[in-house]
């Protein structure tokens, strides 16, 4: 069943993230894809994540398809103008890519080419509208196209954003612009997330909770201090600390698995999106511990 059908059927879905490497050696990534095959509903392929130059998302989505994984093409507006975005979307469509996640994209100042000229010709809300137009056989300028796309489009939201109101207003705009599903920025506090879901449930969209695996207490502190929109509660930091160096990663995997269990059992949201950041091969362990394999 396709990712779209699974999500719409009401089944609890699981996606994970694959970050394309910098350089042409794709052995590790292929290995990860082999491991993930058959265990996920879809796999997100990041688009020059954190503005660090890597293999393009489109090419890796195609590789994912060849490896039997259903890809979600992450598309940011940072590096391409409206012509390039639409052209890549048409390219993705003819390659058999059916899902697209529309994002604005981290600013180039976060990445490894800081003197690059950021584009942002359009942004996430408008990109969602563009995908709608392409799905209806029209380009953004209103020209008729020969052959429409049929994308299932999603967007992102940051439930721990501070202040939250403008973020929620943008969420609403994304729904209005045609987002079918949302994958959230990493969440660690399930009670806070429930509050967000109370709001999100008012809209006819599917919500997948974003989960980033903690590798150490240090990483948790780093996330809190430097990554916007992520808040790791003190109890979890303490839990990671108590585990000690040796068992830290294992504890991190346990926490993620525990959160998945709770989100699923209490029917808090429609699925989860696991961001293992360099530990894609550990995703099956998490799923096993969460009782999903």
């Amino acid at each position: 069943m396709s990712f779209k059908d699974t999500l719409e059927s009401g089944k609890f879905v699981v996606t994970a993230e694959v970050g394309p490497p910098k350089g042409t050696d794709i052995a590790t990534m292929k290995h990860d894809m082999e491991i993930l095959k058959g265990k996920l509903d879809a796999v997100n392929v990041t688009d020059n994540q954190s503005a660090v130059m890597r293999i393009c998302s489109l090419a890796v989505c195609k590789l994912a398809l060849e490896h039997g994984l259903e890809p979600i093409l992450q598309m940011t507006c940072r590096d391409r103008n409206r012509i390039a975005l639409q052209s890549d979307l048409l390219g993705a469509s003819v390659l058999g890519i059916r899902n697209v996640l529309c994002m604005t994209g981290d600013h180039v100042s976060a990445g490894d080419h800081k003197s690059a000229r950021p584009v942002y010709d359009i942004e996430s809300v408008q990109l969602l509208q563009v995908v709608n137009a392409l799905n209806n056989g029209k380009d953004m300028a209103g020209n008729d196209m020969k052959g429409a796309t049929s994308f299932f489009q999603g967007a992102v939201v940051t439930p721990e954003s501070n202040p939250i109101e403008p973020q929620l207003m943008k969420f609403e705009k994304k729904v209005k612009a045609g987002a079918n599903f949302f994958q959230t920025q990493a969440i660690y506090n399930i009670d806070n997330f429930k509050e967000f879901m109370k709001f999100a449930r008012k809209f006819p969209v599917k919500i997948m909770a974003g989960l980033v695996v903690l590798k150490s207490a240090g990483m948790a502190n780093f996330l809190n201090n430097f990554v916007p929109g992520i808040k790791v509660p003190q109890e979890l930091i303490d839990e990671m600390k108590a585990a000690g160096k040796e068992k830290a990663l294992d504890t991190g995997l346990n926490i993620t698995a525990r959160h998945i269990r709770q989100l699923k059992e209490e029917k808090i949201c429609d699925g989860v999106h696991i961001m293992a950041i360099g530990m894609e091969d550990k995703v099956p362990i998490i799923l096993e511990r969460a009782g999903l394999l």
Partner: protein
Amino acid sequence: MIISKKKDRGKLLQTLDRYDSFYLIGCSECASLCGTGNDEALKEMAEDLKAKGKTVTGMIVPKTGCQTLGTKVELKKDKDALDKTDAIVVMSCGAGTQSAVEIYPDKAVYPSNDTMFLGNMTRFQMFDERCTLCGECVLDMTGGICPVTNCPKGLLNGPCGGTKDGNCEVSAEIKCAWVRIYERQKRLGELDKMTEILPPKDWSAKQAPHKLYTRGDAAEGDRKDKK
């Protein structure tokens, strides 16, 4: 106003080394407020050039350097000094520099400043960028705060996921433009504007080089409108 800053003096003097005599042109408007084109700045430049063994044939701070016709009239008064000089150093913005190029098509003209942005002087010689001249103002929809300029991504439909405690992901020294817009619209009771999706910008409105004629019967509007 147009904000300019002085180029690295050492490098500039190196560039100017191929000429022996110079005439200096400042500007009494923006460049004076920026301290890049006022009397004092011109005097300093003259001293630096003399220290390098150069001759300064004269100098002037015209009223408005980018007002080509007016500047031309002012420069006429100093014709002798200008005739004598090998090169002109313009100490205003890039527009003022190009006034001089137009007035003196056969003389070398050099800028002494880097032209930075259109901004406000918030305190003495402290400047903040406010408008990037997008050609299609949306301030009416954004509580009077420009997201095209104040948000490093120029987002038109609300904050990105990078807002951190009300600050921008690009720098903690910048307040997130969209948090500011939200707060202001809330104060004004205009939050409904934040629910309206703003369409993609028409960047052709910003396409350089612009021309605009608004004078009586010669009024033709923007070059783009002419098409």
